[in-house]
């Protein structure tokens, strides 16, 4: 009797190996691209800092890359980004959180099944649409309703639209975190005579806090990196802001880091001078800020994850 044949099949083995490397290549490709981008940023930024001192860049309060007197202080741009971040946070964090509470605790399964995807559509609207919406509808509307002196390009409508854009991020991630809170905790609370509101605020939200917090951070880093809306609607006036003067912050034109980069990148700056290279220095600053925020979000999420079994 001959033994059964369990030997290797050359073609099958070769095909397995080929697929394995194909998949690995695809995974590597995205990592390599990221690394390449960071390297490019670094190399050009180093070039820039050979011509402009790092201290002047980080502490300067005037940004004027093309008009004399030339100045490369990044603080006005960071100010602009800060205004947009604060404004969009004031819109997105409360609305997003309350939406998440509604979806997780109040909405019936059926209603949640179509509300959540509908909300996520908001995240799929092209940002250029939000930008023109801010410029063409929101600004005139605010101007008509509020007795304030609003510039055509202003931080207010831009940050409202950025806020609306990031609501789904806050609500969706927060809702995931709340749905993950064990039902036994809700039952315990209901059993003690708590109302739905008390159950939501005293049990579910605290238990989901790490997820809620990381949704906030992720949404805000999205707001910091948002380009199109601010480039269209927020104006191009790099200026220092005064946190104690909200009207000054929001009613006038500003320039966040992202739209400064758009201006440099699409303007008629020629050659490899510091004005052009400043694009990469600002880009690197932006990258570091959002990277640190995402890192914080990861840390918070992993540190508090096991607390609720």
């Amino acid at each position: 009797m001959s033994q059964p044949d369990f030997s290797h099949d050359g073609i099958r083995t070769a095909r397995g190996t080929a697929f394995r490397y194909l998949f690995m290549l695809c995974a590597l490709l995205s990592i390599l691209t990221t690394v390449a981008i960071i390297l490019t940023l670094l190399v050009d930024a180093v070039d820039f800092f050979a011509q402009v001192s790092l201290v002047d860049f980080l502490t300067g309060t005037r940004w004027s890359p093309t008009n004399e007197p030339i100045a490369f202080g990044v603080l006005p741009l960071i100010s602009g980004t800060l205004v947009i971040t604060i404004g969009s946070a004031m819109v997105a964090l409360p609305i997003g959180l309350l939406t998440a509470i509604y979806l997780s605790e109040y909405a019936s399964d059926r209603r949640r099944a179509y509300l959540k995807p509908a909300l996520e559509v908001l995240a799929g609207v092209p940002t250029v649409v939000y930008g023109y919406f801010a410029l063409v509808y929101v600004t005139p509307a605010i101007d008509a309703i509020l007795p304030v002196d609003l510039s055509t390009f202003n931080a207010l409508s831009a940050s409202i639209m950025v806020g609306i854009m990031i609501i789904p991020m806050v609500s969706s991630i927060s809702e995931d975190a709340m749905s993950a809170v064990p039902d036994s905790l809700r039952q315990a609370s209901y059993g003690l005579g708590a109302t739905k509101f008390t159950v939501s605020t005293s049990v579910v939200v605290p238990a989901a806090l790490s997820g809620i917090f990381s949704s906030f951070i992720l949404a805000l880093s999205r707001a910091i990196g948002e380009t199109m809306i601010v480039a269209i609607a927020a104006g191009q006036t790099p200026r220092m802001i005064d946190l104690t003067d909200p009207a000054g912050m929001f009613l006038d034109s500003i320039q966040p880091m992202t739209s400064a980069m758009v201006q440099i990148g699409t303007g008629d700056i020629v050659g490899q001078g510091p004005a052009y290279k400043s694009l990469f220095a600002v880009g690197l600053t932006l990258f570091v800020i959002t990277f640190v925020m995402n890192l914080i979000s990861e840390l918070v999420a992993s540190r508090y994850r096991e607390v609720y079994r």
Partner: protein
Amino acid sequence: MTNEQMTSSETEPTDDQTAPTPGTDGLADTADSGGETTFDRTLLEARDLSVYYGEERALADVDIEIPEKQVTAVIGPSGCGKSTFLRCINRMNDLVDSARVEGELCFDGKNVYDDDVDPVALRRKIGMVFQSPNPFPKSIRDNVAYGLKVQGKQENVDEKVHTALERAALLDEVEDQLDSSGLDLSGGQQQRLCIARAIAPDPDVILMDEPASALDPVATSKIEDLIEDLAEEYTVVIVTHNMQQAARISDKTAVFLTGGELVEFDDTDKIFENPEHDRVEDYITGKFG
């Protein structure tokens, strides 16, 4: 009588004035009106109580009279509706979208399924302990004080927390760590913490849904001792799948069999020694279920 207190609707922390001190009041009422037989007074009464989950009937025309300040055990095979019955008493079934209740369940004479009854107010008179320990991820103190806080009983919180922990036979073990997390305790301690949490607001009834099924034998026997003590002050209804446990700790036993049918309800001794129904005897002796 106590009917009105259940119908008040909101969470406002005004309950302190309006809420009676349950137990003592109930006892006094009975003593005034009914004479000396306070011991067997019926506190909970189901009449033709049925529960459906969608089309499926989980409880079928249950009639039962549960006496005050005794331990009533509810036993039966899995899926017989015993937990469903327990959750009817404090209307926890309301939280299940597909659940529908028919018939009456009277608490001290008041049908808790009447339109004017707010389940939130009802649950404040009924403590509940669940199958696996479910302390909040808060400190031991905050866990026990939670019900007091929710119900607006803000006076002497520390004192009430201590009393509740003492009654739950947990105080000695946790007295010097009240601020540490309730989740740091062992499973048995966590379950006693949940019992302390349930009795802290001083309800009239305590419902227990297989409270020892997730615990080891030592922790189980501690819980059992505790349940017998609790019956001095509270009406205890306990669901258990452990017949020895029911025999050890209960005064009355209700046997549910398949289809959500209450087959027999009597003194525990009678049920275990000489049940009326053959089906119950088969179940008790392990021939069925």
